[in-house]
């Protein structure tokens, strides 16, 4: 049963990732087409080759270097030296049990307890934990959390979640640029640019793109932290450590100790073990599944 669901999960994640790539390609194409049409209508035939180039660059880049971007954005440092031997041993042990190669191990300097995994497949994967987590949890609890992250790697959740992180980050940058140029354009367009035309069209188009883009991105993030994914990773973690209490008590420690003040970019927050930006007690606007429910399910195993 468990085996079956984990193969299904891999297939599902492959489909989601592919779908995401197609969706991004369509949006990028639309965006570039509109921009070329607005700025240089004469060169509109070039819109296709330009967007194909961009789409290839973007898709390959986020597939190949997405994990590097995520690790840089969270300020993760390689877990080197003897002080982290214990952590590296735990990661290596759990990955042996999962039958995947040992992922690279990183630490994030923070008093908050949290962890995440990123990468594109088990051969190119990384696990990061915060120093707060290392300090607060005992070995069995730590192995429970690591087993949850290793399960994300084995189930190929990491690829989809990393692609979403890159997309949300990009979308934030693009929105920022559009909003800036909107302000800039509004002033210029209103006072000097009597010709109207170009700039106003850009403003209109940008607003339009933004309007369809934003809800899709929000929805994607919600989809990326789907409850099914998290509960399944919890269940697979128990399959690996054979000790539900380790993960359950880690979650309880986190519920008591975390303030939700890690202040990481919203673009990567869905990768984390628990929501890094909100207190566990604040369930309004929650993107992650409630910790109480996760503990309850673990205790029922």
């Amino acid at each position, binding site marked *: 049963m468990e085996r079956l669901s984990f193969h299904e999960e891999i297939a599902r994640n492959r489909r989601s990732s592919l779908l995401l790539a197609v969706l991004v390609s369509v949006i990028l194409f639309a965006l570039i087409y509109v921009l070329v049409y607005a700025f240089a209508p004469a060169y509109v035939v070039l819109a296709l080759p330009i967007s194909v180039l961009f789409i290839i660059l973007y898709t390959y880049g986020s597939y190949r270097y997405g994990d590097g971007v995520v690790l840089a954005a969270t300020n993760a440092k390689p877990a080197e030296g*003897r002080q982290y031997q*214990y952590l590296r*041993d735990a990661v*290596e042990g759990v990955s042996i*049990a999962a*039958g995947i190669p040992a992922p690279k191990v990183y630490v994030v300097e923070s008093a908050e307890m949290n962890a995440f995994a990123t990468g594109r497949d088990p051969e190119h994967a990384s696990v990061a934990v915060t120093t707060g987590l290392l300090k607060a949890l005992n070995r069995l609890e730590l192995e429970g959390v690591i087993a949850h992250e290793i399960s994300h790697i084995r189930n190929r959740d990491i690829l989809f979640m990393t692609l979403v992180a890159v997309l949300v980050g990009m979308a934030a940058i693009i929105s920022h640029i559009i909003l800036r140029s909107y302000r800039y354009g509004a002033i210029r367009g209103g006072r000097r640019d009597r010709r109207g035309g170009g700039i106003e069209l850009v403003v209109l188009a940008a607003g339009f793109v933004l309007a369809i883009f934003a809800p899709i991105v929000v929805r994607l993030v919600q989809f990326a932290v789907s409850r099914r994914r998290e509960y399944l990773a919890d269940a697979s973690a128990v399959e690996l450590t054979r*000790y539900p209490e380790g993960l359950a008590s880690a979650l309880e420690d986190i519920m008591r100790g975390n303030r939700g003040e890690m202040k990481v970019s919203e673009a990567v927050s869905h990768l984390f073990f628990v929501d890094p930006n909100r207190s566990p007690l604040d369930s309004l606007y929650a993107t992650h599944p409630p910790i109480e429910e996760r503990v309850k399910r673990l205790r029922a195993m």
Partner: protein
Amino acid sequence: MSWVVWLAVGVALIVAVFILVLVYYYNRIRVLGNRIEEAWAQIDVQLKKRYDLIPNLVETVKGYARHEREIFEKVTEARERMVSGGSREERMEASNELTGALRTLFAIAENYPDLKAGENFRLFQEQLDGIESKIAYARQYYNSSVLMYNNVITTIPGSWFAGGRQKHGFLEIPEEERRAVKVEF
């Protein structure tokens, strides 16, 4: 006349399906069998690491507690058996005995504050702890690989294609380790 053609097509289809199923199960049994070998290799790596660490550990402890001869002999003897031939079960048995002997050794070390405080000794202890938990995880992977293999070759239709292959044995978890997990909380 045409019914002969239909019959031929039907037979050919059935044979084709049979061959496909045969190939699928043949490969699946092979893949799962290889997984068991790979799982054993993982255990073997950890056993070798532990084998290499122990002489230095014994030397370090001897420097402080020369007269605890009995435990040194026990450790050395189990260490030898852990890598010297024998079946997988026998080698794991020796490894479990070594785990027990090392626990006694570390308990004895508690009586020698100088030894306990030494940087070297603590390093050994950490490394051996790490290896021990990796052996436990590798054994778990081994056992779950064995379970999958056994399931395929003993259930229909896998058993039709198993060609008399025998079930693999599990690596038993030692009694004291089962208890140890419980008392840690």
